[in-house]
C-alpha cells in the first residue's frame, strides 16, 4: 500500500530539510510543470485525478482552480488554509511538522497552475512547531531558487509568506480567512462574488487546505490515473489521513486508501475500544459532522457514502463517544465551542447557538424541562444551510440533530430524572 503523503515523515524526528526532500524526489514535480506543462495542463491533470478538498467540504480541487479568471493580471493569490481548528482534527499539523517542503511544493504548483504571483500560508498561531518548520522551508526554497524571480529559468515569479494568525475558528472559513489576512475581524463575506473573482484585496484568490495541496506534487509526478488507483472509493481519488481520538486503544493518525471503512479505522488501526468501555457512536470528521452509530460502521469513509446516511466525512479524523461519557455533556461541550467561536455577524448563529448551549447546560445541571428537546430540534432547523451567512452554524447543527436522533433516550432521562445520569 502506497502512502505518498507520509512517506518522508518520521514521527519524533526533525522534518526533512531541502536536500533530504530533494533526495527523496522533491521539487521534481515543480520542475516538471515549469519546464513541460502549461498552467491549463496542470489544472486538467488535477481535475482528472478526482482530488477533492481535504478541509472537509470535498469540493473538486481542479474545478476550483478552473474558476480563477485567466484574463485578470497580477496580483493574484493562492492561500494554504493551515488554520486547523476543527475540534478533533490533527492531520494538517502532522503534514506541516513532518514534511513542510511537500506543502510548499504543492503551493508552488497550485500557484503556477492559477498564475498566482503571491502565496500565503495562513497558519493558526498555536502551531509553533509548524511555524518553525514552514518558515525554515520557505527560506530554504528561496535560497535554492524555487521561490522569487525567474524560477528555474522559467520566467515564472512567485513570492511566499507565512502569516501566523491569532486564534479564532472563523479564520478557517474561506472568506473569514481572507478578512483575517487583510488584518480585519474574520467575519464571513457575502458570496457571490466568490474569491476567484474578488478575494484578497479584491483580487483573484484561491484557498486550499494543507492536505489537499500536499497531494498535488504526487499527482503531477505519477499522474491522475495512478492517483485514482490509490483509492478504494469510486468517486474520490487518492489516500486520506484518517484519525481517531477518544477512548480507543490506540488513538492516532493513519494514511490509508480513500474509502477505507469506518470499522477498519476504528477496530484495526485504532485498536477498538479500551478495556471496560463500549462504543456508542462517533463524529466521523470533526465537531461539525453528524454522528454515526453501530449500524454505519461498514460504510466507506469518503465524501459520497457518508452523505447517504445524513453525515459527511469532514476532515476524516473521528471522535469516538463511549458508554462512560454522557452524550448530552458531549453536545454541551460542542455547542459551547460553536457558540463561543461564532463571530456574531449574523443573528441566527449567535442567538441560536447560545440558546442551544444554555438548554444543554440546563439539562446537564438538572434543570432540563419538558419541551427542551423540541426547542433544540427547532434550533437545528433554524440553523440549517441557507439561513446563515456561512457554514459555522449549519455545522454546529449537525452533531446536535443526529445526537437528538440517536441518543434521544438519554436526553429524555436527563429531563425526567432532573440530573445527568453520568455524574
Amino acid at each position: 500500500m502506497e502512502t505518498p503523503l507520509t512517506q518522508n515523515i518520521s514521527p519524533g524526528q526533525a522534518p526533512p530539510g531541502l536536500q533530504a526532500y530533494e533526495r527523496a524526489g522533491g521539487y521534481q514535480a515543480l520542475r516538471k510543470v515549469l519546464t513541460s506543462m502549461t498552467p491549463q495542463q496542470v489544472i486538467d491533470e488535477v481535475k482528472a485525478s478526482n482530488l477533492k478538498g481535504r478541509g472537509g467540504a470535498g469540493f473538486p480541487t481542479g474545478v476550483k482552480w478552473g474558476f480563477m479568471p485567466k484574463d485578470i493580471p497580477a496580483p493574484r493569490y493562492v492561500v494554504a488554509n493551515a488554520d486547523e481548528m476543527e475540534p478533533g482534527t490533527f492531520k494538517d499539523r502532522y503534514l506541516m511538522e513532518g514534511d513542510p517542503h511537500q506543502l510548499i511544493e504543492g503551493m508552488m504548483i497550485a500557484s503556477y497552475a492559477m498564475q498566482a504571483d503571491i502565496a500565503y500560508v495562513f497558519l493558526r498561531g498555536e502551531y509553533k512547531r509548524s511555524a518553525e518548520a514552514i518558515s525554515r522551508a520557505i527560506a530554504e526554497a528561496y535560497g535554492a531558487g524555487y521561490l522569487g524571480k525567474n524560477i528555474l529559468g522559467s520566467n515564472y515569479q512567485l513570492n511566499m509568506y507565512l502569516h501566523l494568525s491569532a486564534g479564532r475558528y472563523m479564520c478557517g472559513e474561506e472568506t473569514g480567512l481572507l478578512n483575517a489576512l487583510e488584518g480585519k475581524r474574520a467575519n464571513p463575506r457575502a458570496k457571490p462574488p466568490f474569491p476567484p473573482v474578488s478575494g484578497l484585496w479584491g483580487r483573484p484568490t484561491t484557498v486550499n487546505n494543507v492536505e489537499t495541496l500536499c497531494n498535488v506534487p504526487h499527482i503531477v509526478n505519477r499522474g491522475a490515473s495512478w492517483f485514482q488507483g490509490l483509492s478504494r472509493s469510486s468517486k474520490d481519488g487518492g489516500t486520506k489521513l484518517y484519525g481517531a481520538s477518544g477512548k480507543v486503544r490506540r488513538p492516532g493518525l493513519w494514511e490509508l486508501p480513500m474509502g477505507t471503512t469506518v470499522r477498519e479505522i476504528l477496530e484495526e488501526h485504532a485498536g477498538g475500544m479500551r478495556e471496560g468501555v463500549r462504543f456508542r457512536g462517533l463524529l466521523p470528521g470533526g465537531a461539525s459532522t453528524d454522528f454515526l452509530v453501530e449500524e454505519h460502521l461498514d460504510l466507506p469513509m469518503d465524501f459520497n457514502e457518508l452523505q447517504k446516511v445524513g453525515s459527511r466525512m469532514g476532515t476524516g479524523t473521528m471522535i469516538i463517544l463511549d458508554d462512560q461519557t454522557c452524550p448530552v455533556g458531549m453536545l454541551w461541550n460542542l455547542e459551547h465551542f460553536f457558540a463561543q467561536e461564532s463571530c456574531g455577524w449574523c443573528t441566527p448563529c449567535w442567538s441560536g447557538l447560545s440558546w442551544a448551549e444554555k438548554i444543554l447546560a440546563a439539562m446537564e445541571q438538572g434543570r432540563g424541562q419538558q419541551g427542551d428537546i423540541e426547542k433544540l430540534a427547532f434550533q437545528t432547523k433554524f440553523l440549517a444551510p441557507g439561513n446563515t451567512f456561512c457554514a459555522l452554524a449549519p455545522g454546529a447543527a449537525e452533531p446536535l440533530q443526529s445526537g437528538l436522533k440517536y441518543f434521544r433516550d438519554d436526553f429524555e432521562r436527563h429531563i425526567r430524572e432532573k440530573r445527568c445520569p453520568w455524574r
Partner: protein
Amino acid sequence: MLSAEEQKEIEAELPHYPTKQAVSIDAMKIVQKHRGWVSDEALQDIAEFLGMSTSDLDGVASFYNLIFRKPVGRHVAYICDSVSCWIMGSQGVTERMTAHCGSALGEITGDGRFTLLPIVCLGACDHAPVMMVDDDLHLDVTPEKAVEILGRYE
C-alpha cells in the same frame, strides 16, 4: 511609544502585504511579545503607526483569542477544553490546576507566575488531554502531571 525594536519588527512584516492594516495582527502580537499584553496606550500607538483608527484596531484585537487586552502572568497556561480532551478528562485537569494555583481561569495567580486560560482544540487529539504553556505543547496530561509541569516554569 513603540520601542525602536518593536517598530523594526513591525516594519519587517510590511513588505508581505499591500496594505498597512494587514499587519495589524502581527503588530499586536509583536507588542504583546515584548510587553505581555496590549494596553490602551499601546493600542493607540499601533493604530497611529498603521494609520488605523484605535476603535477599528480594538475591534480586531478583541476578535482574536491570542491577543490579550488585559495583563497576564509571566506564563500563560492554556488548557484545551474542546471535545476530545473533554472526553479524556480535561475538566479534571482544569479543576486541579485552578485549585493548585488558587485562581480562576482568566485571573493572574497571586505570585504573578501564571494566567490559566481555556483554549480551543490544540490539534493533538490523539494525546488528549493536552495543554500548552507559553509556546510548549504538553501531551497526555493528567491532573498530577499538570501540576508538575507548572512547577517547571518560574
